[in-house]
């Protein structure tokens, strides 16, 4: 199951996000890392240091692209210029699969640069699936969609988040980037059982898993990616691996970023779960 058509039939193991504070360490020490995830938009530029840095990374490491602003869940069609730039980057990185979020963030040409939550409606599922299919066909690369952390729900919703996820990925016939930290954050913000979410998602479509830390506030939890992974999230991860099998896993750490070694060590904690025998579809 880990190598499947949604991740280009690869077995990538554990990776970390490629972040600027670690560049010097990576180039000087050349650490052994399973793979790096890059934020696609950071490299969708015309030239200069970002692309030169990426090319140096590509000489030595495997890279998977993760996007933050394709906005599959937008009611509008995808931005053609964005897709064109993304395709140029896909050709450069030869990413075996590509991910972005199950969310929206722009309307009428105005961008919020946020991962805004979807109303879980059949209309939204249909339009989102249309956009995912369009992206996959244009980019000629397997696409997986990531569940986001959310802080709001809508009266308009007709189903649960996991039912919506199922509806979208079945209609689009795409993969899932399962973010277990996001499931945890949303479960606390919206009072649902995160294990019910995990038990309901189609495990055979999981292309990749995200783990991360978050910040707790008095009345809600915010997905900040600035802490180590907490035990309840590791438990969800363990359960996800039991269902999906040993899947390519990525630790996100985007703010108050510690040393490369610290981030890498945190990511490698996932090894003990991946090494355990999988109980596929348990």
């Amino acid at each position: 199951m880990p190598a499947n058509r949604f991740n280009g039939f690869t077995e990538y193991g554990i990776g970390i996000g490629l972040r600027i504070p670690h560049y010097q360490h990576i180039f000087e020490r050349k650490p052994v890392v399973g793979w790096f995830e890059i934020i696609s938009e950071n490299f969708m530029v015309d030239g200069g240091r970002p692309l030169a840095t990426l090319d140096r990374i590509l000489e030595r490491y495997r890279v998977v692209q993760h996007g933050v602003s394709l906005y599959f869940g937008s009611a509008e069609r995808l931005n053609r210029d964005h897709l064109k730039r993304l395709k140029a980057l896909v050709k450069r990185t030869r990413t075996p699969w590509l991910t972005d979020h199950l969310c929206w963030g722009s309307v009428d040409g105005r961008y919020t640069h946020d991962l805004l939550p979807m109303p879980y409606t059949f209309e939204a599922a249909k339009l989102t699936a249309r956009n995912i299919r369009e992206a996959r066909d244009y980019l000629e690369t397997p696409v997986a969609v990531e569940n986001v952390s959310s802080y709001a729900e809508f009266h308009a919703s007709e189903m649960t988040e996991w039912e919506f996820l199922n509806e979208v990925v079945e209609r689009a016939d795409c993969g899932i980037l399962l973010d277990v930290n996001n499931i945890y954050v949303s479960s606390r913000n919206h009072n649902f059982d995160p294990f019910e979410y995990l038990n309901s998602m189609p495990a055979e479509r999981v292309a990749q898993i995200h783990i991360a830390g978050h910040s707790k506030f008095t009345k809600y939890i915010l997905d900040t990616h600035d802490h180590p992974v907490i035990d309840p999230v590791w438990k969800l991860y363990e359960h996800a691996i039991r269902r999906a099998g040993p899947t390519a896993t990525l630790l996100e750490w985007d703010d108050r970023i510690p040393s490369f070694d610290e981030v890498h060590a945190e990511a490698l904690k996932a090894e003990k779960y991946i090494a355990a025998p999988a109980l596929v579809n348990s």
Partner: protein
Amino acid sequence: MKLMELQRRMAADVMRPLTGSDNIAPKTSAAYVKPNDRLTSLERLEIYNRQYWYRVIDSMYEDFAGLCAVLGQRSFDRLVRAYVAECPSQTFTLRNLGSQLEDWLRRNPGYAGQKLAVALDMARLEWAHIEAYDGESWQALGPEDLIELGPGLRIALQPYIRLLELQYPVDDLRISVNAVSEDHGAASNAVLKSKERGVVRQFTRLKPERIFLAVHRLDFSVYYRRLSVEEFRLLEALRKGLSIGAAVEASLEDSPIPLDELRGKLETWFRSWAELGWLCRPKKK
């Protein structure tokens, strides 16, 4: 509610300007958002509203640190909020958020008050810096390629180079601001405060001085290179697509440089530009 209607409504609410106390406007109707046992509909929407504004404000602070130093933090904050409310991001990347700042400031001079001329120069310089950092580059001509050059030939300037004519020497001020920013986290508070005071002193002593600048990059770092007026006009003419001969004629006809010195200067300029990788062959259309 249809998806498009909901997204238009929520985007308008998320991008609604914050109040003075950094809260969402109290009259916002969040009826489409469900409350939960801890937060009202409005409070849930407010999480997104606040995150939006903090994100765009942070981005502007990062890209326009020099303008912030010119105006002072409070005035800069006021300017950023007004600017972003009128000119929200229109592309997938926050890199482009400040692309309309100079034009907007010309239309809204009150946000810079007495410092308008310096503020406009600084905004132009900082936007040019962003463009020079990751703009497109073409295969450069080296000094050895200059032998082929003749008056009828056309050469191009690297697309990432920005040529600026400024009324104030804001380049030095921007470099000082950058040095202070880089020291954050490394230097002690006392050293930092002293350096920040130095930037303020530098700004208060800033006198008008017409400068000509090329904002360019070398080994992927951005530099500001001051140019003579003749160099500047010649580079501008080359950028417009004139042949070398026509560019020299158009840019140097009123120059006080004696003719016997001109040839030597031209050779020096072209060699220096080639060494910096500024020159390239025009792209075929």
